Protein backbone atom coordinates (compact mmCIF):
# COMPACT_ATOMS: atom_id res chain seq x y z
CA UNK A 1 0.00 0.00 0.00
CA UNK A 2 1.40 3.33 -1.02
CA UNK A 3 1.32 6.27 1.35
CA UNK A 4 -0.93 8.16 -1.05
CA UNK A 5 -3.44 5.33 -0.98
CA UNK A 6 -3.23 5.23 2.78
CA UNK A 7 -4.00 8.87 3.27
CA UNK A 8 -6.87 8.72 0.83
CA UNK A 9 -8.61 5.99 2.77
CA UNK A 10 -7.95 7.09 6.32
CA UNK A 11 -9.71 10.44 6.53
CA UNK A 12 -13.17 8.99 6.13
CA UNK A 13 -12.41 5.79 7.98
CA UNK A 14 -11.00 7.16 11.19
CA UNK A 15 -11.96 10.79 10.98
CA UNK A 16 -12.02 12.36 14.43
CA UNK A 17 -12.45 9.10 16.25
CA UNK A 18 -10.62 8.35 19.46
CA UNK A 19 -8.44 5.35 18.83
CA UNK A 20 -6.55 3.20 21.26
CA UNK A 21 -3.10 4.49 22.04
CA UNK A 22 -0.42 3.18 19.72
CA UNK A 23 1.80 0.69 21.41
CA UNK A 24 -0.95 -0.50 23.72
CA UNK A 25 -2.08 -3.29 21.43
CA UNK A 26 -4.40 -6.05 22.50
CA UNK A 27 -2.76 -8.13 25.16
CA UNK A 28 -4.34 -11.42 24.11
CA UNK A 29 -4.26 -12.53 20.52
CA UNK A 30 -6.44 -15.41 19.36
CA UNK A 31 -5.01 -17.82 16.83
CA UNK A 32 -6.26 -16.84 13.34
CA UNK A 33 -8.07 -20.10 12.71
CA UNK A 34 -10.09 -19.63 15.89
CA UNK A 35 -11.09 -16.13 14.80
CA UNK A 36 -12.23 -17.61 11.49
CA UNK A 37 -14.22 -20.23 13.32
CA UNK A 38 -16.02 -17.58 15.37
CA UNK A 39 -16.86 -15.80 12.12
CA UNK A 40 -18.13 -18.83 10.21
CA UNK A 41 -19.61 -20.59 13.26
CA UNK A 42 -23.20 -19.34 12.91
CA UNK A 43 -23.25 -20.27 9.21
CA UNK A 44 -21.92 -23.75 9.93
CA UNK A 45 -24.38 -24.30 12.76
CA UNK A 46 -27.43 -23.27 10.72
CA UNK A 47 -26.45 -25.27 7.64
CA UNK A 48 -25.90 -28.38 9.76
CA UNK A 49 -29.18 -28.04 11.65
CA UNK A 50 -31.55 -27.09 8.83
CA UNK A 51 -29.78 -28.70 5.89
CA UNK A 52 -27.38 -31.55 6.71
CA UNK A 53 -29.41 -33.21 9.47
CA UNK A 54 -32.76 -33.17 7.59
CA UNK A 55 -30.99 -34.61 4.54
CA UNK A 56 -29.53 -37.36 6.69
CA UNK A 57 -33.02 -37.99 8.03
CA UNK A 58 -34.54 -38.66 4.63
CA UNK A 59 -31.61 -40.86 3.78
CA UNK A 60 -32.62 -42.99 6.78
CA UNK A 61 -36.34 -42.84 6.01
CA UNK A 62 -35.69 -43.98 2.44
CA UNK A 63 -35.01 -47.46 3.82
CA UNK A 64 -38.16 -47.52 5.98
CA UNK A 65 -41.24 -49.63 5.50
CA UNK A 66 -44.65 -48.05 5.10
CA UNK A 67 -48.31 -48.76 4.61
CA UNK A 68 -51.45 -46.65 4.54
CA UNK A 69 -51.34 -46.07 8.29
CA UNK A 70 -47.79 -44.89 8.76
CA UNK A 71 -44.09 -45.52 8.37
CA UNK A 72 -41.99 -48.09 10.22
CA UNK A 73 -38.28 -48.27 10.95
CA UNK A 74 -36.66 -50.94 8.79
CA UNK A 75 -33.79 -51.46 6.43
CA UNK A 76 -35.40 -52.26 3.10
CA UNK A 77 -34.15 -51.65 -0.39
CA UNK A 78 -37.68 -52.05 -1.76
CA UNK A 79 -38.25 -48.33 -2.15
CA UNK A 80 -35.20 -48.04 -4.38
CA UNK A 81 -35.97 -51.24 -6.30
CA UNK A 82 -39.48 -50.02 -7.01
CA UNK A 83 -38.19 -46.64 -8.13
CA UNK A 84 -35.66 -48.06 -10.57
CA UNK A 85 -38.03 -50.65 -12.04
CA UNK A 86 -40.75 -48.10 -12.81
CA UNK A 87 -40.44 -46.95 -16.43
CA UNK A 88 -41.97 -43.60 -15.46
CA UNK A 89 -38.88 -42.79 -13.37
CA UNK A 90 -36.54 -43.17 -16.33
CA UNK A 91 -38.87 -41.24 -18.57
CA UNK A 92 -39.09 -38.32 -16.15
CA UNK A 93 -35.34 -38.23 -15.59
CA UNK A 94 -34.72 -38.29 -19.34
CA UNK A 95 -37.18 -35.49 -19.95
CA UNK A 96 -35.78 -33.33 -17.12
CA UNK A 97 -32.25 -33.89 -18.40
CA UNK A 98 -33.32 -32.93 -21.90
CA UNK A 99 -34.84 -29.68 -20.65
CA UNK A 100 -31.78 -29.00 -18.50
CA UNK A 101 -29.35 -29.40 -21.41
CA UNK A 102 -31.38 -27.27 -23.83
CA UNK A 103 -32.00 -24.52 -21.30
CA UNK A 104 -28.36 -24.61 -20.21
CA UNK A 105 -27.15 -24.14 -23.79
CA UNK A 106 -29.52 -21.23 -24.46
CA UNK A 107 -28.92 -19.42 -21.16
CA UNK A 108 -25.14 -19.87 -21.51
CA UNK A 109 -25.19 -18.33 -24.98
CA UNK A 110 -27.39 -15.44 -23.86
CA UNK A 111 -25.70 -14.99 -20.50
CA UNK A 112 -22.17 -14.90 -21.87
CA UNK A 113 -22.91 -12.53 -24.73
CA UNK A 114 -25.00 -10.18 -22.63
CA UNK A 115 -22.38 -10.09 -19.86
CA UNK A 116 -19.65 -9.45 -22.42
CA UNK A 117 -21.68 -6.62 -23.89
CA UNK A 118 -22.36 -5.06 -20.49
CA UNK A 119 -18.79 -5.31 -19.22
CA UNK A 120 -16.66 -4.59 -22.30
CA UNK A 121 -18.86 -2.65 -24.71
CA UNK A 122 -20.81 -0.35 -22.42
CA UNK A 123 -18.43 2.43 -21.53
CA UNK A 124 -20.28 4.38 -18.88
CA UNK A 125 -20.54 2.80 -15.44
CA UNK A 126 -23.91 4.43 -14.81
CA UNK A 127 -25.42 3.08 -18.03
CA UNK A 128 -23.96 -0.34 -17.24
CA UNK A 129 -25.64 -0.33 -13.83
CA UNK A 130 -28.95 0.76 -15.31
CA UNK A 131 -28.83 -1.93 -18.04
CA UNK A 132 -27.90 -4.54 -15.48
CA UNK A 133 -30.82 -3.52 -13.30
CA UNK A 134 -33.12 -3.74 -16.33
CA UNK A 135 -32.10 -7.39 -16.60
CA UNK A 136 -32.63 -7.92 -12.88
CA UNK A 137 -35.96 -6.20 -12.27
CA UNK A 138 -38.22 -8.99 -13.62
CA UNK A 139 -36.37 -11.27 -11.19
CA UNK A 140 -38.01 -9.33 -8.39
CA UNK A 141 -41.46 -10.49 -9.49
CA UNK A 142 -42.63 -13.84 -8.22
CA UNK A 143 -41.51 -16.78 -10.38
CA UNK A 144 -45.07 -18.11 -10.34
CA UNK A 145 -46.45 -14.90 -11.79
CA UNK A 146 -43.63 -14.71 -14.35
CA UNK A 147 -44.50 -18.25 -15.41
CA UNK A 148 -48.20 -17.66 -15.90
CA UNK A 149 -47.43 -14.35 -17.62
CA UNK A 150 -46.56 -16.44 -20.66
CA UNK A 151 -50.07 -17.88 -20.88
CA UNK A 152 -51.81 -14.74 -22.23
CA UNK A 153 -48.72 -14.06 -24.31
CA UNK A 154 -48.38 -17.41 -26.06
CA UNK A 155 -52.01 -18.56 -26.07
CA UNK A 156 -54.21 -19.13 -29.10
CA UNK A 157 -55.55 -15.59 -28.94
CA UNK A 158 -52.43 -14.40 -27.22
CA UNK A 159 -50.40 -11.30 -27.87
CA UNK A 160 -47.75 -13.15 -29.86
CA UNK A 161 -50.17 -14.89 -32.22
CA UNK A 162 -52.06 -11.64 -32.79
CA UNK A 163 -48.82 -9.94 -33.62
CA UNK A 164 -47.79 -12.67 -36.08
CA UNK A 165 -51.18 -12.57 -37.79
CA UNK A 166 -51.17 -8.78 -37.78
CA UNK A 167 -47.83 -8.83 -39.57
CA UNK A 168 -49.19 -11.41 -42.01
CA UNK A 169 -46.59 -14.02 -41.07
CA UNK A 170 -49.22 -16.68 -40.39
CA UNK A 171 -52.87 -16.81 -41.35
CA UNK A 172 -54.07 -18.85 -38.37
CA UNK A 173 -52.84 -18.93 -34.76
CA UNK A 174 -49.95 -21.25 -33.95
CA UNK A 175 -51.01 -23.79 -31.34
CA UNK A 176 -47.67 -25.34 -30.45
CA UNK A 177 -46.67 -22.19 -28.59
CA UNK A 178 -48.48 -22.88 -25.35
CA UNK A 179 -48.76 -26.00 -23.20
CA UNK A 180 -45.87 -27.69 -24.93
CA UNK A 181 -42.16 -28.37 -24.48
CA UNK A 182 -41.59 -25.12 -26.33
CA UNK A 183 -43.51 -23.18 -23.67
CA UNK A 184 -41.57 -24.95 -20.90
CA UNK A 185 -38.21 -24.02 -22.42
CA UNK A 186 -39.21 -20.42 -23.08
CA UNK A 187 -40.33 -20.06 -19.47
CA UNK A 188 -37.14 -21.57 -18.07
CA UNK A 189 -34.99 -19.27 -20.19
CA UNK A 190 -37.07 -16.32 -19.04
CA UNK A 191 -36.70 -17.31 -15.39
CA UNK A 192 -33.08 -18.40 -15.26
CA UNK A 193 -30.95 -16.36 -17.70
CA UNK A 194 -30.14 -13.89 -14.93
CA UNK A 195 -28.54 -16.73 -12.94
CA UNK A 196 -26.05 -17.01 -15.81
CA UNK A 197 -25.54 -13.26 -16.32
CA UNK A 198 -24.66 -12.55 -12.68
CA UNK A 199 -21.70 -14.93 -12.17
CA UNK A 200 -20.31 -14.49 -15.71
CA UNK A 201 -20.45 -10.69 -15.52
CA UNK A 202 -18.67 -10.90 -12.18
CA UNK A 203 -15.89 -13.01 -13.72
CA UNK A 204 -15.57 -10.79 -16.80
CA UNK A 205 -15.35 -7.63 -14.71
CA UNK A 206 -12.18 -8.96 -13.10
CA UNK A 207 -10.38 -9.35 -16.43
CA UNK A 208 -7.85 -6.61 -17.03
CA UNK A 209 -8.64 -5.16 -20.49
CA UNK A 210 -4.87 -4.76 -20.98
CA UNK A 211 -4.69 -8.54 -21.38
CA UNK A 212 -7.04 -8.37 -24.34
CA UNK A 213 -5.12 -5.47 -25.83
CA UNK A 214 -1.92 -7.45 -25.41
CA UNK A 215 -3.45 -10.40 -27.24
CA UNK A 216 -4.57 -8.15 -30.09
CA UNK A 217 -1.17 -6.42 -30.20
CA UNK A 218 0.49 -9.82 -30.39
CA UNK A 219 -1.53 -10.49 -33.52
CA UNK A 220 -4.46 -12.51 -32.20
CA UNK A 221 -7.76 -12.13 -34.02
CA UNK A 222 -10.83 -11.07 -32.08
CA UNK A 223 -12.00 -14.68 -32.13
CA UNK A 224 -8.69 -16.06 -30.83
CA UNK A 225 -8.63 -13.43 -28.08
CA UNK A 226 -12.08 -14.60 -27.09
CA UNK A 227 -11.21 -18.30 -27.08
CA UNK A 228 -7.72 -18.07 -25.59
CA UNK A 229 -8.03 -15.16 -23.18
CA UNK A 230 -11.58 -14.19 -22.26
CA UNK A 231 -13.23 -17.60 -21.99
CA UNK A 232 -10.49 -19.24 -19.89
CA UNK A 233 -10.50 -16.26 -17.53
CA UNK A 234 -14.26 -16.37 -17.10
CA UNK A 235 -14.61 -20.08 -16.54
CA UNK A 236 -15.44 -19.69 -12.84
CA UNK A 237 -18.47 -17.59 -13.69
CA UNK A 238 -19.47 -19.94 -16.50
CA UNK A 239 -19.27 -22.92 -14.16
CA UNK A 240 -21.15 -21.24 -11.36
CA UNK A 241 -23.90 -20.06 -13.71
CA UNK A 242 -24.14 -23.51 -15.29
CA UNK A 243 -24.47 -25.16 -11.89
CA UNK A 244 -27.24 -22.76 -10.90
CA UNK A 245 -29.23 -23.15 -14.12
CA UNK A 246 -28.81 -26.91 -14.28
CA UNK A 247 -29.87 -27.50 -10.70
CA UNK A 248 -32.79 -25.09 -10.94
CA UNK A 249 -34.19 -26.96 -13.95
CA UNK A 250 -33.59 -30.38 -12.38
CA UNK A 251 -35.28 -29.25 -9.17
CA UNK A 252 -38.19 -27.50 -10.87
CA UNK A 253 -41.58 -28.13 -9.44
CA UNK A 254 -43.87 -25.62 -10.97
CA UNK A 255 -42.99 -24.74 -14.57
CA UNK A 256 -43.35 -28.17 -16.17
CA UNK A 257 -46.60 -28.76 -14.33
CA UNK A 258 -48.04 -25.42 -15.43
CA UNK A 259 -46.65 -24.99 -18.94
CA UNK A 260 -46.42 -28.46 -20.49
CA UNK A 261 -50.17 -28.98 -20.40
CA UNK A 262 -49.73 -32.36 -18.72
CA UNK A 263 -47.50 -33.72 -21.49
CA UNK A 264 -44.38 -33.82 -19.34
CA UNK A 265 -43.72 -34.31 -15.65
CA UNK A 266 -40.78 -33.21 -13.57
CA UNK A 267 -38.91 -35.29 -11.03
CA UNK A 268 -39.92 -33.06 -8.18
CA UNK A 269 -43.60 -32.89 -9.13
CA UNK A 270 -43.62 -36.70 -9.21
CA UNK A 271 -42.06 -36.59 -5.77
CA UNK A 272 -44.53 -34.09 -4.39
CA UNK A 273 -47.39 -36.36 -5.40
CA UNK A 274 -45.87 -39.04 -3.19
CA UNK A 275 -45.39 -36.58 -0.34
CA UNK A 276 -49.02 -35.48 -0.54
CA UNK A 277 -50.05 -39.14 -0.35
CA UNK A 278 -47.87 -39.37 2.81
CA UNK A 279 -45.75 -42.08 1.19
CA UNK A 280 -42.63 -40.74 2.88
CA UNK A 281 -40.27 -43.73 2.39
CA UNK A 282 -40.64 -43.93 -1.42
CA UNK A 283 -40.59 -40.15 -1.62
CA UNK A 284 -37.34 -40.18 0.40
CA UNK A 285 -35.80 -42.80 -1.88
CA UNK A 286 -36.79 -40.71 -4.87
CA UNK A 287 -35.32 -37.63 -3.20
CA UNK A 288 -32.06 -39.43 -2.40
CA UNK A 289 -31.64 -40.51 -6.02
CA UNK A 290 -32.24 -36.95 -7.22
CA UNK A 291 -29.81 -35.55 -4.64
CA UNK A 292 -27.09 -37.98 -5.70
CA UNK A 293 -27.77 -37.28 -9.36
CA UNK A 294 -27.48 -33.52 -8.85
CA UNK A 295 -24.44 -33.93 -6.59
CA UNK A 296 -22.59 -35.97 -9.22
CA UNK A 297 -23.41 -33.42 -11.93
CA UNK A 298 -22.18 -30.55 -9.77
CA UNK A 299 -19.07 -32.48 -8.72
CA UNK A 300 -18.18 -33.10 -12.37
CA UNK A 301 -18.59 -29.41 -13.20
CA UNK A 302 -16.52 -28.36 -10.20
CA UNK A 303 -13.87 -30.88 -11.18
CA UNK A 304 -13.47 -29.08 -14.48
CA UNK A 305 -13.01 -25.75 -12.73
CA UNK A 306 -11.79 -25.35 -9.18
CA UNK A 307 -14.47 -22.86 -8.21
CA UNK A 308 -13.29 -22.71 -4.63
CA UNK A 309 -9.76 -21.67 -5.51
CA UNK A 310 -11.13 -18.95 -7.77
CA UNK A 311 -13.71 -17.65 -5.34
CA UNK A 312 -11.86 -17.70 -2.05
CA UNK A 313 -8.55 -16.09 -2.63
Amino acid at each position, binding site marked *: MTSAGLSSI*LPFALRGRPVAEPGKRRTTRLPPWLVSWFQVGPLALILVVV*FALPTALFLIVSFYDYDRMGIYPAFLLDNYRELFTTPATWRVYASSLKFAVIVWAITLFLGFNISYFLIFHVRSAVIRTVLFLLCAIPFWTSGIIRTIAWIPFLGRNGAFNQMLMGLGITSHPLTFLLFSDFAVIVTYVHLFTLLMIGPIANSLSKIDPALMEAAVDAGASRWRTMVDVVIPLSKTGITLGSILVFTQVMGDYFVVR*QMSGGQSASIVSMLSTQIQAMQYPPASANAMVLVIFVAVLVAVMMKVVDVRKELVK
Partner: protein
Amino acid sequence: MAAGRISDKRPWTFYALATLFGAFLLFLYGPMFVIYVLSFQGDNGGVTFPMVGFSLTWFKEIFQPGQMANIPVSFSRSIGLAAVVSGLTVVISVAAGLGFRRRFPGSGVLFYLAIASLVMPSLLVGFGIGLSFQFLGVEPGLFTSALGAQLTWTLPFGLFAMFAVVNRFNRSWEEAATDLGANAWQRLRHVTIPILLPGIIGVAMGAFTLSYDEYARTTLTIGTKNTLPLEIYALISSATSPTLFAIGTLTTGVSFLAITISLLLVLRMQRRRAFAKAG
Protein backbone atom coordinates in the same frame (compact mmCIF):
# COMPACT_ATOMS: atom_id res chain seq x y z
CA MET B 1 -14.30 -2.14 -13.59
CA ALA B 2 -14.42 0.10 -16.58
CA ALA B 3 -12.89 -1.41 -19.66
CA GLY B 4 -11.35 0.93 -22.16
CA ARG B 5 -11.32 -0.26 -25.74
CA ILE B 6 -8.37 -0.15 -28.02
CA SER B 7 -9.81 2.45 -30.32
CA ASP B 8 -12.87 4.64 -30.15
CA LYS B 9 -14.43 3.11 -33.23
CA ARG B 10 -17.08 0.54 -32.38
CA PRO B 11 -16.36 -2.92 -33.84
CA TRP B 12 -19.19 -4.74 -35.64
CA THR B 13 -19.55 -7.06 -32.64
CA PHE B 14 -20.80 -4.10 -30.63
CA TYR B 15 -23.80 -3.72 -32.92
CA ALA B 16 -24.44 -7.46 -33.00
CA LEU B 17 -24.35 -7.74 -29.22
CA ALA B 18 -26.38 -4.58 -28.74
CA THR B 19 -29.07 -6.08 -30.98
CA LEU B 20 -28.97 -9.32 -29.02
CA PHE B 21 -29.26 -7.39 -25.78
CA GLY B 22 -32.21 -5.40 -27.10
CA ALA B 23 -33.94 -8.59 -28.24
CA PHE B 24 -33.32 -10.12 -24.82
CA LEU B 25 -34.91 -7.15 -23.08
CA LEU B 26 -37.95 -7.47 -25.37
CA PHE B 27 -38.14 -11.15 -24.50
CA LEU B 28 -37.79 -10.35 -20.82
CA TYR B 29 -40.39 -7.61 -20.72
CA GLY B 30 -42.84 -8.75 -23.44
CA PRO B 31 -44.89 -11.08 -21.26
CA MET B 32 -44.46 -8.75 -18.29
CA PHE B 33 -46.08 -5.92 -20.23
CA VAL B 34 -48.94 -8.23 -21.15
CA ILE B 35 -49.66 -8.82 -17.46
CA TYR B 36 -49.25 -5.14 -16.64
CA VAL B 37 -51.89 -4.35 -19.28
CA LEU B 38 -54.20 -7.20 -18.34
CA SER B 39 -54.14 -6.23 -14.67
CA PHE B 40 -56.28 -3.24 -15.66
CA GLN B 41 -58.83 -5.57 -17.27
CA GLY B 42 -62.48 -4.48 -17.02
CA ASP B 43 -64.91 -5.95 -14.48
CA ASN B 44 -66.17 -8.69 -16.78
CA GLY B 45 -62.88 -9.46 -18.46
CA GLY B 46 -60.83 -12.60 -18.11
CA VAL B 47 -57.18 -13.59 -17.93
CA THR B 48 -56.63 -13.37 -21.69
CA PHE B 49 -57.14 -10.79 -24.38
CA PRO B 50 -59.23 -9.02 -25.49
CA MET B 51 -59.51 -6.26 -22.91
CA VAL B 52 -63.10 -5.67 -21.85
CA GLY B 53 -62.94 -2.08 -20.71
CA PHE B 54 -60.66 -0.70 -18.09
CA SER B 55 -60.89 -0.89 -14.32
CA LEU B 56 -58.99 -0.99 -11.06
CA THR B 57 -61.25 -3.80 -9.77
CA TRP B 58 -58.45 -6.33 -9.59
CA PHE B 59 -56.21 -4.05 -7.58
CA LYS B 60 -59.03 -3.46 -5.10
CA GLU B 61 -59.48 -7.21 -4.88
CA ILE B 62 -55.90 -7.57 -3.65
CA PHE B 63 -56.63 -5.56 -0.54
CA GLN B 64 -59.82 -7.37 0.37
CA PRO B 65 -59.65 -10.66 2.22
CA GLY B 66 -61.41 -12.96 -0.25
CA GLN B 67 -62.85 -16.45 -0.01
CA MET B 68 -60.04 -18.00 -1.99
CA ALA B 69 -57.11 -16.21 -0.49
CA ASN B 70 -56.30 -13.62 2.09
CA ILE B 71 -53.76 -11.50 0.30
CA PRO B 72 -53.21 -8.67 2.82
CA VAL B 73 -52.47 -11.00 5.73
CA SER B 74 -50.23 -13.34 3.74
CA PHE B 75 -48.46 -10.30 2.31
CA SER B 76 -47.63 -8.98 5.78
CA ARG B 77 -46.40 -12.46 6.78
CA SER B 78 -44.15 -12.57 3.71
CA ILE B 79 -42.74 -9.13 4.46
CA GLY B 80 -42.10 -10.01 8.11
CA LEU B 81 -40.37 -13.27 7.23
CA ALA B 82 -38.35 -11.63 4.44
CA ALA B 83 -37.16 -8.90 6.84
CA VAL B 84 -35.97 -11.45 9.41
CA VAL B 85 -34.35 -13.65 6.73
CA SER B 86 -32.61 -10.63 5.22
CA GLY B 87 -31.27 -9.42 8.59
CA LEU B 88 -29.96 -12.83 9.60
CA THR B 89 -28.44 -13.41 6.17
CA VAL B 90 -26.54 -10.14 6.25
CA VAL B 91 -25.05 -10.67 9.72
CA ILE B 92 -24.18 -14.33 9.24
CA SER B 93 -22.88 -14.19 5.69
CA VAL B 94 -20.83 -11.02 6.19
CA ALA B 95 -19.15 -12.61 9.21
CA ALA B 96 -18.59 -15.85 7.28
CA GLY B 97 -17.30 -13.98 4.22
CA LEU B 98 -14.67 -12.31 6.42
CA GLY B 99 -13.87 -15.62 8.11
CA PHE B 100 -13.24 -17.34 4.77
CA ARG B 101 -10.42 -14.94 3.92
CA ARG B 102 -7.94 -17.26 5.58
CA ARG B 103 -7.80 -21.01 5.39
CA PHE B 104 -8.95 -22.69 8.55
CA PRO B 105 -9.47 -26.34 9.44
CA GLY B 106 -12.82 -27.42 7.99
CA SER B 107 -13.08 -24.56 5.50
CA GLY B 108 -13.33 -27.01 2.59
CA VAL B 109 -16.14 -29.00 4.20
CA LEU B 110 -18.09 -25.85 5.02
CA PHE B 111 -17.63 -24.50 1.49
CA TYR B 112 -19.04 -27.66 -0.08
CA LEU B 113 -21.84 -27.75 2.49
CA ALA B 114 -22.84 -24.27 1.32
CA ILE B 115 -22.67 -25.36 -2.35
CA ALA B 116 -24.78 -28.43 -1.57
CA SER B 117 -27.33 -26.31 0.27
CA LEU B 118 -27.54 -23.96 -2.71
CA VAL B 119 -28.01 -26.63 -5.38
CA MET B 120 -30.28 -28.97 -3.45
CA PRO B 121 -33.69 -29.10 -5.18
CA SER B 122 -35.79 -26.66 -3.19
CA LEU B 123 -38.75 -28.88 -2.45
CA LEU B 124 -36.43 -31.51 -0.98
CA VAL B 125 -35.05 -29.03 1.57
CA GLY B 126 -38.58 -28.33 2.71
CA PHE B 127 -39.36 -32.04 2.70
CA GLY B 128 -36.37 -32.82 4.94
CA ILE B 129 -37.22 -30.06 7.40
CA GLY B 130 -40.92 -30.90 7.41
CA LEU B 131 -40.08 -34.55 8.06
CA SER B 132 -37.70 -33.60 10.90
CA PHE B 133 -40.39 -31.53 12.57
CA GLN B 134 -42.81 -34.44 12.30
CA PHE B 135 -40.27 -36.77 13.88
CA LEU B 136 -39.67 -34.31 16.70
CA GLY B 137 -43.40 -33.79 17.13
CA VAL B 138 -43.11 -30.01 16.70
CA GLU B 139 -45.65 -27.96 14.78
CA PRO B 140 -44.03 -26.25 11.78
CA GLY B 141 -44.23 -22.47 11.89
CA LEU B 142 -43.38 -19.28 10.06
CA PHE B 143 -40.37 -18.30 12.19
CA THR B 144 -39.12 -21.81 12.89
CA SER B 145 -39.26 -24.33 10.05
CA ALA B 146 -40.06 -21.88 7.24
CA LEU B 147 -37.32 -19.51 8.41
CA GLY B 148 -34.84 -22.39 8.51
CA ALA B 149 -35.85 -23.60 5.05
CA GLN B 150 -35.34 -20.16 3.56
CA LEU B 151 -31.96 -19.69 5.22
CA THR B 152 -30.66 -22.80 3.43
CA TRP B 153 -31.08 -20.78 0.26
CA THR B 154 -30.27 -17.21 1.28
CA LEU B 155 -27.15 -17.98 3.37
CA PRO B 156 -25.15 -19.64 0.55
CA PHE B 157 -26.30 -16.85 -1.75
CA GLY B 158 -25.11 -14.26 0.79
CA LEU B 159 -21.83 -16.10 1.27
CA PHE B 160 -21.04 -16.22 -2.47
CA ALA B 161 -22.00 -12.60 -2.90
CA MET B 162 -19.66 -11.75 -0.02
CA PHE B 163 -16.82 -13.67 -1.70
CA ALA B 164 -17.17 -11.37 -4.68
CA VAL B 165 -17.21 -8.32 -2.41
CA VAL B 166 -14.40 -9.41 -0.10
CA ASN B 167 -12.14 -10.34 -3.04
CA ARG B 168 -11.94 -6.69 -4.00
CA PHE B 169 -11.13 -5.69 -0.45
CA ASN B 170 -7.53 -4.79 0.24
CA ARG B 171 -6.35 -6.24 3.53
CA SER B 172 -3.71 -3.60 3.98
CA TRP B 173 -6.49 -1.12 4.79
CA GLU B 174 -7.24 -3.13 7.89
CA GLU B 175 -3.56 -3.48 8.67
CA ALA B 176 -3.16 0.27 8.37
CA ALA B 177 -5.95 0.76 10.89
CA THR B 178 -4.30 -1.66 13.29
CA ASP B 179 -0.95 0.05 12.85
CA LEU B 180 -2.59 3.32 13.77
CA GLY B 181 -3.83 1.75 16.96
CA ALA B 182 -7.43 0.77 16.20
CA ASN B 183 -8.71 -2.19 18.18
CA ALA B 184 -10.63 -5.04 16.53
CA TRP B 185 -14.02 -3.44 17.03
CA GLN B 186 -12.96 0.01 15.81
CA ARG B 187 -11.35 -1.58 12.79
CA LEU B 188 -14.54 -3.44 11.93
CA ARG B 189 -16.82 -0.50 12.64
CA HIS B 190 -14.83 2.27 10.96
CA VAL B 191 -12.87 0.51 8.24
CA THR B 192 -14.17 -2.89 7.19
CA ILE B 193 -17.93 -2.36 7.27
CA PRO B 194 -17.98 1.10 5.63
CA ILE B 195 -15.88 -0.22 2.73
CA LEU B 196 -18.05 -3.31 2.32
CA LEU B 197 -21.34 -1.43 2.75
CA PRO B 198 -22.53 -1.34 -0.89
CA GLY B 199 -22.00 -5.11 -1.10
CA ILE B 200 -23.79 -5.62 2.20
CA ILE B 201 -26.80 -3.64 0.94
CA GLY B 202 -26.82 -5.89 -2.15
CA VAL B 203 -26.85 -9.00 0.02
CA ALA B 204 -29.69 -7.61 2.15
CA MET B 205 -31.83 -6.79 -0.89
CA GLY B 206 -31.05 -10.10 -2.60
CA ALA B 207 -31.91 -12.12 0.49
CA PHE B 208 -35.11 -10.14 0.97
CA THR B 209 -36.39 -10.87 -2.52
CA LEU B 210 -35.27 -14.50 -2.49
CA SER B 211 -37.29 -14.95 0.69
CA TYR B 212 -40.25 -12.88 -0.47
CA ASP B 213 -40.67 -14.97 -3.66
CA GLU B 214 -39.75 -18.33 -2.22
CA TYR B 215 -42.29 -21.04 -2.86
CA ALA B 216 -40.89 -24.57 -3.10
CA ARG B 217 -38.91 -24.55 0.15
CA THR B 218 -41.67 -22.95 2.13
CA THR B 219 -44.64 -25.02 1.02
CA LEU B 220 -43.85 -28.06 3.18
CA THR B 221 -42.52 -26.13 6.16
CA ILE B 222 -45.03 -23.34 6.64
CA GLY B 223 -47.75 -25.09 8.63
CA THR B 224 -51.19 -23.62 8.25
CA LYS B 225 -50.51 -19.93 7.68
CA ASN B 226 -49.55 -19.18 4.09
CA THR B 227 -47.07 -16.65 2.81
CA LEU B 228 -47.91 -14.61 -0.31
CA PRO B 229 -46.38 -16.95 -2.94
CA LEU B 230 -48.26 -19.90 -1.43
CA GLU B 231 -51.46 -17.86 -1.49
CA ILE B 232 -50.81 -16.99 -5.15
CA TYR B 233 -50.25 -20.63 -5.93
CA ALA B 234 -53.55 -21.52 -4.26
CA LEU B 235 -55.23 -18.85 -6.39
CA ILE B 236 -53.80 -20.35 -9.58
CA SER B 237 -55.00 -23.84 -8.76
CA SER B 238 -58.50 -22.76 -7.80
CA ALA B 239 -59.59 -19.94 -10.04
CA THR B 240 -57.69 -17.68 -12.36
CA SER B 241 -58.60 -14.03 -12.36
CA PRO B 242 -56.69 -10.91 -13.35
CA THR B 243 -56.03 -10.40 -9.61
CA LEU B 244 -52.87 -12.44 -10.12
CA PHE B 245 -51.72 -10.01 -12.76
CA ALA B 246 -52.58 -7.08 -10.52
CA ILE B 247 -50.34 -8.62 -7.85
CA GLY B 248 -47.57 -8.92 -10.44
CA THR B 249 -47.95 -5.30 -11.49
CA LEU B 250 -47.96 -4.12 -7.89
CA THR B 251 -44.89 -6.23 -7.03
CA THR B 252 -42.98 -4.79 -9.97
CA GLY B 253 -43.98 -1.27 -8.96
CA VAL B 254 -42.82 -1.82 -5.39
CA SER B 255 -39.57 -3.42 -6.62
CA PHE B 256 -38.89 -0.46 -8.87
CA LEU B 257 -39.37 1.84 -5.91
CA ALA B 258 -37.14 -0.23 -3.62
CA ILE B 259 -34.37 -0.44 -6.23
CA THR B 260 -34.51 3.25 -7.01
CA ILE B 261 -34.30 4.15 -3.32
CA SER B 262 -31.36 1.86 -2.59
CA LEU B 263 -29.59 2.98 -5.76
CA LEU B 264 -29.93 6.58 -4.66
CA LEU B 265 -28.63 5.64 -1.21
CA VAL B 266 -25.56 3.95 -2.69
CA LEU B 267 -24.94 6.88 -5.02
CA ARG B 268 -25.19 9.31 -2.12
CA MET B 269 -22.81 7.19 -0.10
CA GLN B 270 -20.30 7.16 -2.94
CA ARG B 271 -20.60 10.87 -3.40
CA ARG B 272 -19.98 11.48 0.30
CA ARG B 273 -16.95 9.22 0.11
CA ALA B 274 -15.59 11.01 -2.90
CA PHE B 275 -16.12 14.25 -1.01
CA ALA B 276 -14.41 12.90 2.10
CA LYS B 277 -11.51 11.70 0.00
CA ALA B 278 -11.18 15.04 -1.75
CA GLY B 279 -11.50 17.02 1.46
